[in-house]
Each structure stands twice: as structure tokens, then as C-alpha cells.
């Protein structure tokens, strides 16, 4: 954060979208962290972004046996199946 004034909720929410997963211990993040610790609204926003990411991470589309066989066939590796 380049500004000297205290961050607003909007600044903090923008920062969450920009920097979630990055180095939140850097000095420039101190004001943001302080705000986040004491602001209910920003904590809710932070939590919702984390759940969004985690939901897509957890949701897996499984490959079917047919798709697997067709891949091995396409690559001419179908005779290498154990």
C-alpha cells in the first residue's frame, strides 16, 4: 500500500483479492493485517474468498475408464496396460 492514511475496507478487500497466498508478513501489509484483525466485514470477505478457492480445489472431475482407454489407444500405448 502506497498511501499513508489508514486503509479503508475497500482497500483491504482489494488487497485480499490481489495478495491472498502471498507474503502477508511484509511491512507494507501490516496496516492491512491490523485492519483485517479488527474488522468483521473484511474478515467475512476474506473467508468468502478462501471458501471460493477451496471449493474449486476440492471439486474434482474424475476421468472415466473409457476416456483412459481412448487416451492410451490414441497414444499407441494400449499394449502397455498392466
Amino acid at each position, binding site marked *: 500500500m502506497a498511501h499513508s492514511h489508514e486503509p479503508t*475496507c*475497500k482497500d483491504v*478487500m*482489494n488487497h485480499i*483479492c*490481489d495478495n*491472498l*497466498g*502471498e507474503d502477508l508478513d511484509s511491512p507494507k501489509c501490516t496496516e492491512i493485517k491490523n485492519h483485517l484483525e479488527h474488522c468483521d*466485514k473484511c474478515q*467475512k*470477505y476474506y*473467508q*468468502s*474468498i478462501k*471458501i*471460493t*478457492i*477451496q*471449493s*474449486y*480445489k*476440492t*471439486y*474434482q*472431475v*474424475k*476421468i472415466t475408464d473409457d*476416456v*483412459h482407454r*481412448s*487416451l*492410451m489407444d*490414441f*497414444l499407441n*500405448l494400449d*499394449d*502397455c*496396460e498392466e
Partner: protein
Amino acid sequence: MEEKELIKKAQEGDRNALAKLVKQYEQTVYNFAFKICRDKERAEHTMQETFLSMVKSIKQFSGKSKLSTWLYTVVSNHCLMMARSNKKHLHASIDDEDSLIDEKNITDWNISPQRIAENDELKDILNEAINKLPPDYRIVFMLRDIQGFSTEETGKAINLSVPAVKSRLHRARAFLRNELNNTFSYGT
């Protein structure tokens, strides 16, 4: 057998080792391709092209990066090519970064990601939301947030500058969160 050993054997022409490498990564490559292509046939085709690239160039693979990183780079670019050739689908406009965060629209999310991923109705909502996101943004979100690439690695994989990766990631996160907010907020 360790991956390094499998790669070495595959480079020496061992087809069984090559098949083992394919099996090791087919699930993750398919899952990634499906989430970008949003269509089973296109995901299958993209996965096949990705592994064909691997089979053709395994001898040139230097091992400087992980094989998984290399595969995600290849599958990402195949997905982008596929998406650019299929412009029929209309995506949401997310050019206005400022309007993506609405302070009046902040609610408690009292739901676990595991529950979302196990419930078909909720999975449809995840699908609908990511489907609206333009593919260029989906790729960045997938590489950076789902596969755990760094910002620099993401940029390198799809030939984007670090500021461009950051901007697309910012918009993708805020957009998806907004799309899911009505369903996942407390009390629904």
C-alpha cells in the same frame, strides 16, 4: 519407481515407463482441462493433445522444471487455443475491477468447501459461475489458486506479465466470489 527414473527410462524409449507417466498425470490433466474447456469432449481432446506433446518431446525434457509444471503449461496453452477457436460462448464482462467489490454485499459464508464439492446441486452452481468467467481469467485462477503456481510461474506458463497475472487473478477471485455469494451466504 521414482518419477526421475521413469522419465529417464521413457527418454531411452521404454514405452511402459511412458505409459506409467501418462497414468500418473491423466487425472490431473483431465480435471484441469475440463475446468477450462467446460465440455467433456473438448477436455478429452485437449488432454490427448497434451500427452501427445509429452510423448513427442520427452527426449528433450531437461528436468529443470517439474514434469507436472511442464504439463500444466502445455495443457493451458492447448485450452487457450481451443477457447479462442470457440467464440460462440458469451462470457461476463469483468473489465470494471472497481465494481467487482461491493461493500454492501458482504455476508457470512457458513458452508464447508467439502460439502460444496460433494453436493451435485452446489457443484452445478460452481460450474455455472466458472462458466461465465472468460477462459483467459479461468486459466490464471486455475494455475495460481488451484494448482498452486506462483504468480511468476503462471505468467511464464501462459506468456503474461506479472501485473497482468495479478490483475486477472484479482478479477477472477472477486467475480467468482460474487457469483457464489447468493447461494453460499449465511442462512441460505
